[in-house]
């Protein structure tokens, strides 16, 4: 197993009376995309900002690339790239000027600024003022700035908020590209689809506490083993046959359409075997896999959008 580049142990952070983060522990491994997922206000940003060294936890310990992020903050900043939620730049700074300024802040010489702008679709905007950029363009500029020093660890806080689906997909591709170059990505998102498509492992956080950590697939298998198959058929014997499937829990019929709930890995295979064995003619077949969204609902009792 790759060694951890980020270790967080027992971190607690309070703002006046409110406990933002409580006893949070996790590891981010070298070369993975790790996601902290949960609803707004769950403590994602606070946790991330403690790891970035721009907030000091009240309790607990954090190590990033072997450094103490709060004590060695300048040394750390030189090796990481950060995209903050809700950040701004000077209204009248031009895109290329921001890239140029950022490039001058790091020890390493930086030369791929123009390529980054191109990758992020900002080349045409390089002479525009920050205030004239759209929300999505600003977001892409912040991602470019986070990547400018070719960082070892990249922090992305709600990176696709405010982007249209097309731009979102482009950003996902870019994040995968970061991983492909051997970098580690630590991100937060409240979009379960984003976490599912992007993250190697996720930590689910709610009310400042981590509920579970694993790969999205294993979280789904562990917490939502239920599977659903929806089949359309005119076969009069179908209902009876479906009820005899070993792991079927519930069979519901709505005209020619059957919804079969079952449990376990083998369930869908059993359904297919049943159809084949009894030569049931089907007009449609759909297997539904629970998602992280369902895992979240199961673990917290409410939807992440509430």
């Amino acid at each position, binding site marked *: 197993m790759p060694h951890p580049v980020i270790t967080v142990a027992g971190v607690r952070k309070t703002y006046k009376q409110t406990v933002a983060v409580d006893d949070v522990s996790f590891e981010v491994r070298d070369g993975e995309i790790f996601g902290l997922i949960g609803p707004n206000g769950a403590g994602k940003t606070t946790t991330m900002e403690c790891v970035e060294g721009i907030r000091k936890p009240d309790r607990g310990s954090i190590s990033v690339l072997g450094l103490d992020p709060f004590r060695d903050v300048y040394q750390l900043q030189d090796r990481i790239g950060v995209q*903050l939620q809700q950040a701004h730049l000077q209204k009248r700074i031009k895109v290329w000027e921001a890239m140029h300024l*950022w490039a*001058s802040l790091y020890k390493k010489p930086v030369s791929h600024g123009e390529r980054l702008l191109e990758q992020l679709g900002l080349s045409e905007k390089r002479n525009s003022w920050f205030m004239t950029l759209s929300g999505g363009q600003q977001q892409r500029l*912040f991602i470019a700035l986070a990547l400018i020093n070719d960082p070892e660890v990249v922090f992305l806080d709600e990176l696709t908020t405010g982007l249209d689906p097309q731009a979102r997909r482009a950003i996902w591709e870019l994040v995968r590209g970061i991983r492909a170059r051997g970098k580690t990505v630590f991100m937060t998102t409240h979009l379960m689809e984003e976490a599912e498509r992007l993250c190697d492992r996720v930590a689910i956080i709610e009310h400042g506490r981590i509920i579970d950590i694993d790969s999205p697939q294993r979280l789904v298998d562990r917490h939502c083993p239920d599977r659903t198959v929806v089949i359309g058929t005119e076969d009069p014997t179908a209902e009876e046959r479906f009820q005899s499937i070993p792991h079927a829990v519930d069979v519901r019929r709505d005209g020619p359409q059957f919804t079969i709930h079952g449990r376990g890995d083998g369930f869908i295979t059993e359904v297919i075997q049943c159809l084949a064995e009894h030569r049931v003619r089907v007009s449609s077949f759909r297997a539904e896999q629970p998602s992280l969204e369902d895992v979240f609902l199961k673990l917290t009792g409410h939807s992440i959008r509430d």
Partner: protein
Amino acid sequence: MMRGLFQLTWLEIKIFLREPLGAIGTLLVPVAVFLVIGRAMNRGSGVRTPGGLEFLQSGLPVMASVFMAISAVISLITIISIYREGGILKRLRATPLRPQTILSAHVLVKLLFTALSVTLMMLAGRRYYPIGLQGPAIGFAIALLASTLAILSIGFVVASVVPTARFAQPVGALLFYPMLALSGLFVPVDALPAGLQIVAKLLPMTYVVSLLQGIWVGHSWFAHLGDVAALAISGAVFVALSARVFRWE
């Protein structure tokens, strides 16, 4: 240590010039006001009274300089508060950039523009005032630099904590203008009531005015060592204080 200082300063100069009224407000308006006041003083009395002449030759330059220094400091407070309110400071924090570099860049920008407008005023004074302005230009420039830095140190404390831009201007004005009223710029400190004299002696602005007035009329620096020491001490105290209370957001 100060990596990025040059780039940030140059960038802030360009950004400042892009502001609507940025250059006009800082460079042209003070010079224009200076000329208008000068003309009015010159003509209004009809005859050049000794008092009017004295004001033109020593009062006005010092007054103009102090006001410019204060407006530079207030605009620094405003910019830092805008950066704080807008999350720009926070964004800069998540880089190897240090707070002292950010403040230094803004100080350099302010000093540059203040120096430019003082120079413009001097040139305008020489050219348009019949009597001309005579003063020890280099000595006065150094005294003005020291004074501006002393006022800036107070400004740092305000700039370090003011949460929003809306507060920055009034807080700056409330802080500096009463100080100015007691500083001896308009009424000599000796002519104030006893209680206010004590207050005046505690305020850095009093030493700013004393130093500038003295140097302008040709006193030696030796005669104003007390002023310089007072400004140095207050400057050190306020810089240290602002470093302690500096807020990124």
